[in-house]
């Protein structure tokens, strides 16, 4: 028999005036499982997380954490959550240790237990030797790691990480990802939002692909990629009128989606090898100058393109 889920959220809805930011989002996370919300900026990830953590009044839906219903005012359920916000929410004029001590008091930890846990959390994020420096003097990556340490402090049953690697150097990013992998191995349920496909593929047991406030698909990486079928992702790198190239290529039979990103046209194509000459011809006729072609096996980027018709980082 599988363990009861740590987080159950159903039918979450949030409106800001006429804008429906989150529309019927629901998912569950079990102990030791890492669930990723993958979507571009503005997809509704942070709004969803804010409702999951009881930081935002929801217009509809339910959130249950560790068996307790959660609202903005329920403190018991919040005790089971470790929240790591997207912004670096630490006091810059306190040391790393002082920041952790402060939040240990808000979590209601006894002083002796807090001292022990602060030491452990600092070790986990690799800040033990800089613990008594002011947080304002940390590098960007170190601040991010302190941000995460605060969320881990009270051994939460659910750790919620909102884009924790944004603006982080590759070394710190790798350290953060390794840390999250280790946490999930230790039995914590992790909710992880990102717009980086590689992070979602590396960390998450299950992934919800979210766009415009709606979860378009959910499953393991294998299950999601299967949605694309035998289709490949073709990337035409080049210059010229790439928007026209995308439009023209998108109209060809066998091309399911086309979008422009980072100086290239991304296409989801059925039978890529056979269609490649035709794609290059149409691109040239549409004013594009193609200087590189990549054909990828389906990945989450392909899934997102397939489901939404646009790239993850449009």
């Amino acid at each position, binding site marked *: 028999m599988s363990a009861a889920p740590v987080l159950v959220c159903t039918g979450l809805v949030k409106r*800001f005036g006429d804008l429906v930011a989150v529309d019927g989002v629901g998912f569950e996370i079990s102990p030791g499982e890492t669930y990723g919300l993958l979507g571009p900026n503005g997809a509704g990830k942070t709004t969803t997380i*804010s409702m999951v*953590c*009881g*930081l*935002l*009044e929801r217009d509809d839906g339910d959130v249950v954490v560790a068996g307790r219903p959660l609202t*903005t*005012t329920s*403190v*018991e359920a*919040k*005790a089971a*959550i470790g*929240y790591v*916000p997207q*912004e*670096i*929410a*630490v*006091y*810059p*004029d*306190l040391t790393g240790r*002082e920041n952790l001590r*402060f*939040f240990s*008091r*808000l*979590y*209601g930890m006894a002083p002796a237990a807090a001292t022990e846990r602060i030491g452990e959390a600092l070790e986990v994020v690799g800040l033990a030797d800089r613990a008594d420096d002011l947080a304002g003097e940390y590098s960007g990556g170190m601040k991010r790691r302190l941000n995460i340490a*605060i969320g881990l402090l009270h051994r939460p049953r659910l750790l919620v990480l909102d884009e924790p690697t944004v603006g982080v150097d590759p070394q710190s990013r790798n350290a953060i990802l390794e840390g999250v992998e280790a946490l999930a191995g230790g039995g914590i349920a992790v909710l992880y939002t990102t717009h980086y496909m590689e992070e979602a593929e590396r960390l998450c047991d299950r992934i919800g692909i979210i766009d415009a406030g709606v979860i378009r698909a959910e499953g393991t990486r294998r299950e999601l990629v299967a949605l694309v079928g035998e289709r490949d992702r073709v990337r035409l790198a080049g210059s010229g009128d790439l928007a026209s190239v995308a439009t023209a290529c998108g109209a060809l039979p066998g091309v399911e989606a086309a979008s422009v990103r980072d100086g290239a046209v991304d296409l989801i194509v059925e039978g890529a090898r056979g269609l490649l000459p035709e794609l290059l011809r149409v691109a040239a006729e549409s004013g594009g100058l193609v200087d590189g072609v990549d054909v990828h096996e389906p990945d989450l980027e392909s899934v997102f393109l397939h489901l939404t018709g646009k790239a993850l980082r449009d």
Partner: protein
Amino acid sequence: MRSLAIAAVNLRRFARQRANLFFVLVLPLLIVAMLGLVFGATDVDLGVVQRSGGPLAEQLSDDLGATEDLAVVRYEDESALERAVQRGRVEAGLVVPDDYTAVLEAGGTATVRWIARPGTASIQLRQAVEAAVARQGTVLRAARFVAAEQGGDVESRLAAAATVAAAVPGVDVEVRPADETVAAGDLGQFDLGAATQLVLFVFLTSLFGAPTLIEVRRLGLSRRMLSTPTRHLQVLLGESLGRLAIALVQAAIIVVGSALLFGVAWGSPPAAAAIVACFALVGASFAMLLGSALSSDQQAGALALVLGLGLAALGGSMVPLEVFPDRVRTIAHVTPHAWANDAFAEVLRHGGGLVDVLAPLAVLLAYAAVVFSLAAWFFRRAVTG
């Protein structure tokens, strides 16, 4: 406990910034100096040269020294006294001639020399000297009369006249204020001014907690606190307690410093402490309201200044409430300042204690509760949407 943790972290952050020491220690001490200079009860110095003028000269000096708010400073010679007056070490000087007693006992007229710079203080000092001379002259005339009528020398009759003069009751003039609000008793004309200035300062300095709250919100710390088992009221209470503690420390420095160093009167200590505490609560609540309702710390700082000075002006901290027409005085009581100033007036003018100011204190507490509730509503809306 969680609120105290938030308050403690605020105080730690406040203390860590050196510039803030100016606001906690230096600014209150400047206010103390200002209050002391303007409202303090310091003695005015009178220089006196009196070397061998005899018993009557000595008596005149002693009489002057016993005059309230006047201190006698002895000088060896006239030139030293002149220099002291010129350099402002004393407000004025009196030179008593060496033959002062001898001339008076012989029935002559002694002449003293008055040295002064132009100014109000020297005029007041001259009045004090003239009064002392007049008192001595009365006794001297009585002694001369007795000596003339009954025989004996003036010196021996002087002692008898002085004894009789001390036993004769003077004429008491009871001063009854035409208006209850006029100062009575030994309250200096400016002592209430010190209290109204304190009210202005406490409110203004409390309001500057608003930008701090906005900064905490901007850093995402308020939201993060609310992700822990901490209610939004606890967060707001913690933020306001930190600000309240700072305001109370500042107020304590001002009250104790000005009282000890300059003799500024603050009335009953429990009553004054209660007024300051309740009013600081109102100030902290206002700070939380601004910090919750606004999103720019610059905007909050500007509004704090306008509110701090505007409410103080309307509430009688710049011009006494008594000078306002009745209708304006009624409107002024929309401000918490008016109630705090009323409470201080009761304590300082009528010697009131804690019990006598319960009504204005209750109004101030109600004010704090209403404003804090409003702040809590704005805070929750700002942080949890």
